[in-house]
């Protein structure tokens, strides 16, 4: 990869300041960014590591009962520490492999918004709140298409707040080489309704399958969405699976998730 300057600030304010210079890029765990830079698909002039900022690490429960996860918290830490939200802990435990989970961070994953990443499904299905150094963003406004989010240049995702559902589950149909989701479906049942978010399938990135949400909000069982699947229009088609195959998987995985959530 091309060379770059490296900074590792210890406060959010210092990180924001370091990201102010031209072509500077925030670095989470680097499990996506570093391979991308090796391929020379990205060539920032400066990397600002967010891993030395204590206030962006760890998991806690907010006054409203929401699970608050610091942006620099690793997948392994979420898998081990998000027990009050089993669906989310299970999602984190299934990302990549153990060594990748030890470095990769929730903030890095959500800021990158890979169309096949797991966390976007969990965050969108939870109606999570994205906290940055400047503002709070609702999940429904945050995801804006493949690799695109509401984050501004230099804005840091410092924390993500997840309302804890009554029942939840994430089902991933793994692409075995990359361990990303060929299709992944996160189902979360709240008192005011069910949310279903799908990753890996759409050319627009993570999306809510509202037809299933409506059916499941009336009857939270796999039977309520039997034989249902979204249309294949706009689904990803590649050597791993056709658009129709992915659309079919969305239905199958949603039914499995509902059954597993119980």
């Amino acid at each position, binding site marked *: *990869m*091309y*060379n*770059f*300057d*490296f900074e*590792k600030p210890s406060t959010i304010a210092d990180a924001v300041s370091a990201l102010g210079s031209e072509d500077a890029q925030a*670095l989470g765990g*680097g*499990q996506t960014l*570093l*391979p991308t*830079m*090796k391929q020379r698909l990205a060539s920032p002039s400066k*990397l600002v*590591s967010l*891993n030395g900022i204590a206030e962006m690490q760890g998991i806690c429960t907010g006054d409203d009962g929401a699970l608050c996860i610091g942006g620099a918290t690793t997948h*392994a830490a979420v898998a081990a520490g998000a027990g009050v939200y089993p669906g989310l802990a299970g999602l984190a435990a299934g990302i*990549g*492999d*153990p*060594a*990748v989970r*030890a*470095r990769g961070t929730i903030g890095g994953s959500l800021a990158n918004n890979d169309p096949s990443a797991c966390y976007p499904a969990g965050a969108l299905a939870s109606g999570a709140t994205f906290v940055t150094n400047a503002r709070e963003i609702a999940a429904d406004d945050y995801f804006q298409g493949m690799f695109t989010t509401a984050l501004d240049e230099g804005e840091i995702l410092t924390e993500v707040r997840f309302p804890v559902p009554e029942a939840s589950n994430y089902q991933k149909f793994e692409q075995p*080489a990359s*361990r990303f989701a060929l299709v992944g479906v996160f189902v979360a049942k709240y008192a005011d309704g069910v949310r279903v978010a799908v990753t890996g399938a759409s050319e627009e990135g993570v999306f809510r399958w509202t037809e299933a949400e409506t059916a499941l909000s009336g009857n939270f069982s796999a039977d309520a969405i039997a034989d249902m699947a979204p249309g294949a229009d706009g689904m990803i088609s590649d050597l791993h699976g056709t658009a129709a195959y992915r659309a079919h998987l969305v239905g199958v995985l949603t039914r499995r998730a509902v059954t597993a959530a119980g």
Partner: protein
Amino acid sequence: MSQVTMTVNGKEMSGDAEGRTLLSQFLRDTLDLTGTHVGCDTSQCGACVVHVDGVAVKACTMLAMEAEGASVDTIEGQAAPDGTLNALQQAFQDHHGLQCGFCTPGMIMSAADLLKNNPQPTEAEVRHHLEGNICRCTGYHNIVKAILAASGQDVSSIAAE
């Protein structure tokens, strides 16, 4: 270039690194610790797994500067100073857990990470934990068997498939 200092296998070591210097490059090229192998360089194969502050990571996908001040353990630090293999290494030898040996440093370091947190894993847990370590020789059976043996479990009934 700036100076990076870390504790490697219990000894404090320093060297120059660029921003882009990977931990794997720093260990191999700067510190001459070539036991950490680089297979794919894309964090798929796991030959480069080392422990940073007690946790297994892929050294090809971590910057050397991120390990400033950290405690790093590599395959070179696993055997006793007189060369006596540790239990995992000996089990790999006893159960033919390697052929060409290229993946073995990463396999040993990943397995050590597993056994530290789960001293008596099931066969399924071992296989699950090794998802990020690829071996093109053995077919994995003897690697799994060696790790189960190193954990003190009876592997006499496990066939070498």
